[in-house]
């Protein structure tokens, strides 16, 4: 008899952001991901849990890693998957978001994984359509599964998250990864410091309880883990003013090369959410360093997304046939 098995559920029906999750939710996702990580190392990497569900992946913004990762996660849970990207669709004919999604849901879709360029798109959708929503990145707002897999990778590498000092470097202003990471790491008891050009640091960011250190060398000496965010070239200069003079100057002040890494004087873990601009945020020698867990992050992404989809699916009531 399964007397020792704990019975728990997520406290949310949708994964819209880390902000809405409790620490217990995050721990539950991690424990479930441990199980899926083991499944992913089997000769047959597939389990039947979601075979009666259909998931639509709606990508209104380009993506490689997140999209492939979600699709693999869905397929390894045996869900039926439909993919949609805004290019070449009716969105370019002027259809609204709610109409697009409701038309897709009319074809009996249970869950929607959505990436969208507008902050709040996932929350908006969750209020207006009858399906479970997983936010795969909404503009500059949140990217919850990335934050979960980042914290999970730290937990795997260092054995814990609580008390770990995490430095997030780069374009904080445009980064949904930064915001979700701050929420996630703080909920798990980690300390967070931010570093980047003043022009890419949101005002009043310190009200979130994070420290801001403009000098990368000082910040690196403080941290146990450095998460080097991508410079979002596609979001720069939206107001007609460049946020930094040149990529070369950015790389000199906020990029991590091997020489700078050696100057830290201790071993720190290197992370990057991808895609890497090699030679800008990190040089190749750092990206491929023994302490870099960039590819572990990608590997863990599938297990984390399987866990999220599985736990959300568990809360979908079964309807009588």
């Amino acid at each position, binding site marked *: *008899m*399964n*007397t*020792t*098995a*704990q*019975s*728990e*559920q997520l406290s949310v029906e949708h994964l819209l952001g880390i902000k809405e999750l409790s620490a217990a939710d995050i721990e539950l996702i991690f*424990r*479930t991901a*441990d*199980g*899926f990580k*083991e*499944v992913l190392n*089997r*000769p*047959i*990497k*597939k*389990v*039947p*849990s979601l075979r*009666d569900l259909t998931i639509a992946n709606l990508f209104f913004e380009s993506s490689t890693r997140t999209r492939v990762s979600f699709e693999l996660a869905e397929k390894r849970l045996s869900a039926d998957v439909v993919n949609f990207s805004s290019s070449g669709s009716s969105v370019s004919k002027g259809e609204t978001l709610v109409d697009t999604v409701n038309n897709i849901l009319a074809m009996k879709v249970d869950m929607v994984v959505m990436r969208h360029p507008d902050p709040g798109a996932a929350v908006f959708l969750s209020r207006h359509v009858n399906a479970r929503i997983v936010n795969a990145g909404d503009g500059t707002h949140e990217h919850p599964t990335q934050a979960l897999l980042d914290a999970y990778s730290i937990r795997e590498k260092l054995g814990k998250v609580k008390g770990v000092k995490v430095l997030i470097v780069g374009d904080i202003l445009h980064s949904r990864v930064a915001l979700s990471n701050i929420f996630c790491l703080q909920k798990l008891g980690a300390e967070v410091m931010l570093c980047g050009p003043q022009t890419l640091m949101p005002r009043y960011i310190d009200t979130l309880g994070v420290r801001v250190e403009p000098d990368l060398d000082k910040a690196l000496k403080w941290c146990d883990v450095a998460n080097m965010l991508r410079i979002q070239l596609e979001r720069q200069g939206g107001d007609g003013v460049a946020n930094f003079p040149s990529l070369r100057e950015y790389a000199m002040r906020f990029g991590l090369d091997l020489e700078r890494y050696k100057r830290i004087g201790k071993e720190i873990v290197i992370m990057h959410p991808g895609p890497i601009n090699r030679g800008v945020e990190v040089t190749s020698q750092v990206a491929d360093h023994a302490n870099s867990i960039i590819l572990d992050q990608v590997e863990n992404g599938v297990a984390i997304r399987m866990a999220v989809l*599985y*736990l959300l*699916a*568990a809360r*979908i*009531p*079964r309807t009588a046939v």
Partner: protein
Amino acid sequence: MSSVPLLTSKAFGLTVERLCYQLIEDHGKLEGLAIIGLQPRGILLARRLRGELHRILGKEQLQYGELDITFHRDDFRHRTSLPQPSATQLDFSLDDRKVVLVDDVLYTGRTIRAGLDAMLAFGRPASVQLLVLIDRRFSRELPIQPDYVGRWVDSIGDQRVTVQWKETDGADQVLLHGPGTEGREPSSMAQGTSADR
């Protein structure tokens, strides 16, 4: 809730030992045999069997693994509670092996069905047998029967059988809980073994 012991420490030890001798009787030196405990409770019996077989035979002849079946259950989204996954440790291929699945209590048979399904991810065994400490017969929901049984128990639906282990619960014993157990003699409820066949 009242409960009555079905097996206490001494009989418990004898039963586990007999199951080991039955395995040896059927499989000789156990070469090519794989014992797989089902998570979470079957592994405790499987570990005990492994230790006993090691003691009896003097050296390790068999492959040993532990299998979690959480993601293969057929009641996902059918119940409100969500079982938590446990660790699977199976670092060898099951291709052409003789497999003995091990669980503590056989009841509806649904866990075993999930176990058979989960096991297929690790290869195609030559044969699969089932060993359980307690068989709650007459309560099966699927056509699954054990090959090795510690004790048969005739119980009604509201009753519950729990197996407790020295390692995790402090003592080796099997308890029957629920209505109708007050003042009953254990011998009237736990009867017969596969040795009687």
